[in-house]
């Protein structure tokens, strides 16, 4: 479990996160949503240790990030996988080398063993015969799948995704969503996704944390989001007519 307690972060005296507390559980796909500038990305970067927080604590399965020594930090980092918004694949490396990279850095496995693992995860994300291609030769959706493969190649306990659907067509976005949810169950990971995509939120958001102006304004599941009367989340999620109608239909059906 990841426990976030009273997380506070500021930049040049301007508070961006104002005392956020929540928990993220194993085997569940959790989503952080909110308007641009609400602090989602900063929150995710604090969880990843890319931003140092001023107050509060982040506890990974009983390990407080702040209390860990350098070696333990490195160990914890190796238990994390991250899918970046743009994929963040290394341009100069082939797909095989990209996915193999964490294995090369952190294991003493033979090349054959590493290759076997790479092929296993590439197959898991439904990518085959792309080993020798370069990232630029793949479509956006395929690049995202390679990024997911790289993120899970070390069998991480924690998977973080920053807007994994941005720039993808609706079909491909659904494929990526389903893939993330499936591997979360399969690997029993704690998955935290930062997203703007309301389809993803409704589809796979087993836990949703809604941030507004740096505070947690609402927390619940994708089922609860239909029923909630919380003004902040209703304004945000049901800003489009389509979603308003979807909500009406859902509420009528469940009456």
């Amino acid at each position, binding site marked *: 479990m990841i426990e976030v307690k009273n997380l506070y972060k500021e930049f040049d005296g301007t508070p961006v996160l104002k005392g956020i507390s929540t928990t993220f559980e194993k085997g569940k796909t959790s989503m952080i949503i909110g308007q641009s500038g609400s602090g989602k990305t900063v929150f995710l970067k604090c969880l*990843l*240790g*890319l931003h140092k927080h001023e107050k509060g604590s982040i506890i990974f399965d009983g390990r407080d990030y702040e209390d860990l020594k350098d070696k333990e*930090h*490195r*160990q*914890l*980092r*190796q238990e*994390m996988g*991250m899918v*970046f*918004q*743009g994929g*963040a*694949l*290394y*341009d*100069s490396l082939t797909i095989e080398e990209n996915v193999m990279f*964490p294995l*090369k*850095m*952190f294991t003493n496995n033979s090349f054959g063993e590493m290759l076997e693992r790479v092929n296993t995860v590439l197959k898991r994300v439904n990518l085959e015969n792309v080993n020798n291609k370069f990232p630029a030769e793949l479509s956006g959706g395929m690049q995202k799948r390679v990024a997911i493969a790289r993120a899970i190649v070390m069998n991480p306990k924690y998977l*973080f995704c920053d807007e994994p659907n941005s720039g993808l067509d609706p079909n491909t976005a659904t494929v990526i969503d389903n893939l993330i949810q499936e591997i979360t169950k399969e690997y029993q990971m704690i998955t935290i996704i930062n997203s703007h995509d309301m389809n993803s939120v409704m589809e796979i958001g087993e836990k949703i944390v809604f941030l507004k102006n740096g505070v947690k304004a609402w927390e619940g599941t994708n089922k609860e989001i239909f029923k909630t009367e919380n003004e902040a989340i209703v304004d945000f999620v049901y800003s489009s007519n389509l979603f308003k109608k979807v909500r009406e239909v859902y509420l009528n059906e469940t009456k």
Partner: protein
Amino acid sequence: MNYLEHIGKYFIMLKQVFKKPQKWSVFKEMLFREVEDLGLKSLGIITFISFFVGGVVAIQTALNVDSPFIPKYLIGFATKRSMILEFAPTFMSIILAGKVGSYISSSIGTMRVTEQIDALDVMGINSLNYLVLPKIIAALFFYPLLILLAMFLGIVGGYFAGVLTGLFFSEDYIYGIQLDFNTYFVKYAVIKTLVFAFVIATIPSYHGYYVKGGSLEVGRASTQAVVWTSVVIILLNYFLTQMLLG
């Protein structure tokens, strides 16, 4: 940010760079890649420029030495001294600052804006050590060899330029380049090159690593990297010359 802050941040960066590589096999792989990217791929331009610069120096000297009291072998002597003392180490380093400096800065800067550096950090990799140390070692190892080659080719270029145009005789030129050959000058040039190689590898890395924004900022960082690398090379050239020859 003022200049002092940049200088401080640069030295803090170096502290992170000079740490033990996390995996020697990966470091070795990166090192060979950098030797190719920063060294071998610069071979062509260094060969081309040094050959023709040597030719121009020889022709200019020959055209300015028209007094019958000045021996013709001085053309070879002057070309050799110019190439060894200044043109090869300093001029070629400025060329490398432009070619390699912009490459380093833009490649690291692109990695920064496309979150590839964040990806390294998230994995628990010391990104500065992983990206910059192999560049420094590759430059320190390869650039003295490039500069020695530039000296040789510059002198050969002078020979061909003068002899083919009939400005001087082959024997005079060869006598001139052998005259008063001081090996300390070569050592001096190599010492300067080692310092410049360090500057060429680290200043553009600094500009690329700390870039913020998008592709436009990467372009700006690349330009700044070349400008500052050239300025530092020129300043260090002055101080090193004072220290080593003064």
